[in-house]
């Protein structure tokens, strides 16, 4: 959205740093700016089609309700061996937010057939109820420029993107899929900058306590120029036992880096992020260092239709015995067809921890 002069995210998203349930203003943008079809009357106004259930059920001002469902078909062809196709119901989450005066509360509850275990509420190997985000918040001012939240939230780190498999999100363990944490966060925004700082209390949907991470995560982004934002992120956590089984004993894990968003024209958005990651066993073993990076160019060549190129890199165990360089290259076609409906197709070439492969993805996303 930086191509449309939106340097911040709080105007359109219930989570002030981006993602989660769209606000009424955010829903309106799906008609006025984003979708190929479904424009309001006279081409520039908003009608009920961008609202909850296409406006069939008007909601009171204090209540916001939504749903996000995403279905994907993927086909993966390893460099050696036969290909494999699979259907994945990626997300089916109901979301709600309540605003009463300066108080806010928001949450989600959904179903996950496979994966998403760190966000699971039930305790089955598959087919779980999941709750990715839920919190209570207090706005210190009417413009909501200063917000304190307590609960389970997305970690404030780097760029918010739904692409949870990107190295910048997955290796730093800051994705929007299931790597949320419990804690307290403070968000602030002004005309020229925004930041969020979170004290991480751990994931209380993960047992036993020795696996929970505690520490901090934060980002700061400046609107350096018109349609150009430059940001910095930092996160350090302590864990009694590594749930990834990469380290024996307790460890300190961290990620630190920068990100940038730039829209040289109203049709093109360029985004990048580069982070250094480190894992330090507290028992005295050698730390493991790595680096992850991504560059993305998003060209909206027709309203609602995007062509996106995303090369990404992961330098694992830099200077160590297991030193290896992984990469992926994505080509994406995304079509925001109508308010609440978008389609997506991706082609990926990769040499990553899963091996060398090519992959094709097709997704349909429905939100209400």
């Amino acid at each position, binding site marked *: 959205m930086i191509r449309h002069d939106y340097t911040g995210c709080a105007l359109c998203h219930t989570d002030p740093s981006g993602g989660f349930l769209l606000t009424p203003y955010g829903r309106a943008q799906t008609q006025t700016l984003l979708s190929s079809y479904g424009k309001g009357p006279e081409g520039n106004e908003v009608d*009920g*089609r961008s609202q909850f*259930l*296409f*406006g*069939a*059920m008007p909601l009171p001002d204090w209540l916001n309700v939504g749903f996000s*469902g995403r*279905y994907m078909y993927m086909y993966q062809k390893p460099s050696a061996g036969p290909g494999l196709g699979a*259907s994945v*119901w990626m997300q*089916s989450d109901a979301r709600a937010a309540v605003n009463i005066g300066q108080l806010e509360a928001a949450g989600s509850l959904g*179903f996950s*057939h496979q994966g998403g*275990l*760190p966000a*699971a*509420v*039930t*305790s*089955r190997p*598959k*087919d*779980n*109820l999941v709750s990715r985000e839920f919190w209570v918040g207090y706005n210190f001012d009417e413009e909501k420029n200063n917000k304190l939240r307590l609960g389970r939230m997305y970690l404030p780190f780097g760029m918010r993107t739904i692409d949870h498999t990107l190295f910048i999100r997955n290796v730093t363990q800051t994705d929007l899929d299931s790597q949320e944490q419990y804690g307290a966060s403070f968000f602030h925004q002004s005309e020229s900058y925004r930041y969020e700082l979170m004290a991480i209390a751990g994931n209380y*949907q*993960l*047992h*036993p306590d*020795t*696996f929970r991470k505690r520490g901090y995560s934060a980002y700061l982004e400046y609107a350096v120029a018109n349609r150009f934002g430059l940001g910095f992120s930092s996160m*350090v956590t302590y864990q009694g*036992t590594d*749930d990834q*089984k*990469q*380290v*024996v*004993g307790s*460890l*300190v894990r*961290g990620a630190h880096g920068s990100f940038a968003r730039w829209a040289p024209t109203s049709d093109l958005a360029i985004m990048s992020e580069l982070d250094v990651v*480190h*894992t*330090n*066993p507290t*028992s*005295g*073993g*050698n*730390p*493991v260092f790595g680096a992850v990076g991504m560059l993305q160019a998003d060209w909206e060549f027709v309203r609602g239709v995007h062509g996106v190129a995303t090369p990404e890199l992961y330098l694992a*165990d830099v200077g*160590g*015995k*297991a030193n290896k360089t992984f990469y992926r290259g994505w080509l994406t076609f995304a079509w925001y067809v109508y308010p*609440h409906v978008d389609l997506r197709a991706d082609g990926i070439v990769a040499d990553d921890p899963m091996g060398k492969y090519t992959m094709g993805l097709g997704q349909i996303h*429905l939100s*209400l």
Partner: protein
Amino acid sequence: MKTIHSFCLVLATGVLLPTQAFARSDFPALIQTSLMLTQPPPSGCLLCHASSGGGGTVVQPFGIAMKAAGLNFGTDQAGMTAALNTLAANKTDSNGDGISDVDSLKSTIDPNPGGASPQYGCGGGQVASQRPVGWQATILALLTLVLFSVRKSRKI
């Protein structure tokens, strides 16, 4: 100001700089040669140390057993073979799974205990024995809801 500067230095040193780095990066290769394995032993430096980068105190039970069998920082190929032979003769089983450490390594299995595994969820447990709703039914329900909503919004 000085206090803040010192704190930052300690923090940076503790977090970013490596601690004592006494590690023999060739030990996994020596194990492979001594046991005539076709590939390096599993887990690399994690066989004995706390991280894949090695170094520091030996914390893994297998590594502790090897030290007790005579392995030290200066051990050569002959010393590695001797230590492994000691473990084999004693049928040392560091993780208590009934398979000796040497036999585990020959089967490309880490001989150390696996440790606790993470458990997820809030203890809701087995609420149903089968998946409650298939994905096909979910899509059908969603499409029905969308069609109903669009139709109703046009009537308003």
